[in-house]
């Protein structure tokens, strides 16, 4: 079975999982359990298959270009990266990608070199590569450094488990979500809720960027003067 065909077969399992997540978890769990001979319980990934200080799993993903690439090795390794879930149909009511686009506009960092974004669809059946490609174009997503991807049932479960979700594709109808941000080489990871002010999110992302040596006088970070303009979400000097 070639990779493309295998992906589509797996995807059908994933689609079933959206309706009956427990069944998907069982299927994945059984396979892993059998392979590693766990006497009890289930391990979704083995230690020796985790990568980097952030201990991320590898997975096969399909990009909006229709290419099959590696989730960790090709999209995350060695990068400052944002990882989020989204779905095209949900974007109107819960604009995750639109919000992220605003975040990138607040950042001085350059997409594709300083910063990378991996947007994983939680609706892999409807969000085909072609549809994701059209969506990205419609949204005005920069061509460099921002990848829209979908995963098969098994790979989706592995990645979502790592990202603190239940071992199933996240519910595309969700109205709360989080975005992971991290400096992969360092293993420094945080996450912020979807919907926070773009400038707030941008400050958080900037905080994990490689720092520069400090010299000269120390700067007063705050508090700012009480009558001085600044962000509503902090008391820092702007």
């Amino acid at each position, binding site marked *: 079975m070639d990779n493309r065909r295998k992906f589509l077969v797996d995807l059908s399992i994933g689609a079933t999982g959206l309706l009956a997540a427990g069944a998907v978890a069982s299927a994945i769990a059984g396979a892993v359990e059998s392979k590693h001979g766990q006497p009890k319980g289930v391990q979704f990934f083995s230690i020796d298959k985790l990568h980097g200080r952030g201990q991320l799993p590898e997975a096969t993903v399909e990009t909006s270009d229709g290419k099959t690439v590696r989730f960790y090795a090709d999209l995350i390794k060695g990068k400052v990266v944002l990882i989020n879930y989204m779905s095209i149909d949900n974007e109107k009511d819960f604009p995750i990608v639109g919000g992220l686009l605003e975040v990138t506009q607040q950042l001085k960092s350059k997409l594709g070199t300083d910063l990378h974004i991996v947007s994983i669809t939680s609706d892999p059946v409807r969000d085909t590569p072609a549809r994701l490609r059209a969506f990205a174009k419609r949204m005005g997503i920069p061509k460099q450094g921002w990848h829209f991807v979908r995963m098969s049932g098994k790979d989706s479960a592995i990645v979502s488990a790592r990202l603190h979700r239940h071992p199933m594709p996240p519910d595309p109808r969700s109205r709360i979500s989080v975005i992971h941000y991290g400096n992969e080489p360092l293993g420094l990871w945080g996450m912020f809720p979807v919907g926070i002010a773009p400038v707030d999110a941008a400050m958080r992302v900037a905080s994990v960027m490689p*720092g520069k040596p400090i010299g000269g006088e120390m700067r007063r970070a705050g508090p700012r003067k*009480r009558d001085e303009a600044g962000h509503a979400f902090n008391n820092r000097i702007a």
Partner: protein
Amino acid sequence: MVSRRFTLKLGAAAGAGLVTGSAFGQTVPQSGLVFPDGYQPSWTRAPSPPSTPFVTPLFVMPIAQPVPESALNPPPDPASHQRYGEFQPQKFYIQKMQEGKWVYHSDPPYNKGSWGYTIDGIVPGPTFITKYGEPLLVRRLNQLPPVGTGVVTWALPSFAIHTHNGHQASESDGYPADFADPGEYWDHHYPSFPAGNDSREIMGTLWYHDHRLDFTATNVYAGFSGFYLAFDDLDSNNENDPNPKAFRLPSGKYDVPLILHDVLFDQDGQVVWDYVGAQPVSSNENGGGGFGPNPLYTVDGMVGDKFTVNRIIQPYFQVERRKYRLRLLNGGPSRFYSVAFTKDGKTPEPVHVISTEGNLLPKPVLTDDYFDLWPANRYDIIVDFSKYEDGDKIYLTNRLEERADGAGATGRYLDPTNLIMRFDVMGGEVEDPSRIPEFMRPLPRIDLSEVKREREFVFDYTNGMWTINGRLMDPNRIDAAIEQGSAEIWTLRNDGDAWGHPIHTHFEEFQILEINGRPVDPDDVTSIGRKDVVQLGPGDEIKFFGRWRDFFGKYVMHCHNVVHEDHAMMIRWDIVEPGKGF
């Protein structure tokens, strides 16, 4: 004293058949568990290197020393602080927040030192000794190496230091978004007056710790915590005080702050940040559902396998045969304890609890039982060592069992227990001028006619996210606007069925009205007095009365399992002008 809520729940849960038995013959419910039943952690694969208990002396933090105002260059900006002119600082301090090594134990490999975050070169940081009526200002310098240039990679070199639960203005509270990055500093102004200028609101045992947005857990774990003690004319830090009204509690070297942190180390003795967590497993895979091991970072909690007190692994402390004031604090990040002082490692010795959450009670409570110590809980305890003989050993003992596989509590009681530190009773009889007062601070009156609003906050878990009222923390969103000078009643409810949440709200103390519809048991030291943390066990509902006074601005309420806090189990509330609340 046995009629505490935890014990009551124990009986109820056992009767309902919710739990299994233990070797100790006792059962407790799932309340307060960091990890749900069935969970297996990763660190059993790589536990910390062994260390000999009770061979390393307790570290007693030095007292923070003021500096001349002129040492602050540029000087503090009065226009940056609310009511600065009314509460002009009389003392000034500078704290250097740095990366450095700390020796947790004298055995190898720990004796080589472990990298972490230090305050003025030590962990925990120096202890502030402050007095009501003497405002102070602390300038905190971020001298941490910028991201990617230091040794500690898993914490963020940025801080927002919160004095828990200081009555200070928003801009000095350590609001999570008020951070200082490397090369920056922040001025924290502490006005040192009781809430509402009501002497019944005077506090005693406070602590300071990092509150950095998204990275509080890592940064506190890395080392950013310390004590902040407040005194007044009654609790005067002088056991020989001639003032007839003074409490004359044990003072000076007989007043000892103790902060508990559980830490995990690698085989080189370096601190490991590994907040592993559970992964749900399908019910048809392990015969009933549950949780499988996850070697990865999660949002659940971080549990270490080495008990430290003042950042020393299982220390010993030589004590004279007299009374001591021991200030117990669970500094987290996530572990729950049930503690007592024992001679045989099991049976609680009678001690006097004089304060909860750092606030002196109306009168001391004599207890001969264990008491629950959740993250951020504080108790001041008077232990009278005069009743022991030279050579006797007394242990600070935890009986809440960790899982056989290591992480989180099982809900069962241990036998044998964990011996966290040892007090070595030394010498002959000594003079002891200190006293255990019959009465201390009366509680502020609860006047329901002052109540302007009642609010409800529901704590839950949704697909890997810790929510309050179904939402995640947004520092730009005001979840409650409280009118200055008003009182409110808040109901906190835990809709989860397996997780305990120590919920902390900033700035003002409150008094619990009801727990699960029942009034507070006056002997329950976990619930009486003025509080700033509640133990919200699975399914619990706690109602409290509080007042909001004196300052304006933004503050937070959050879960003090700081891993939950970092994963957005937090709200912003503001104090606003009268008439502008919502």
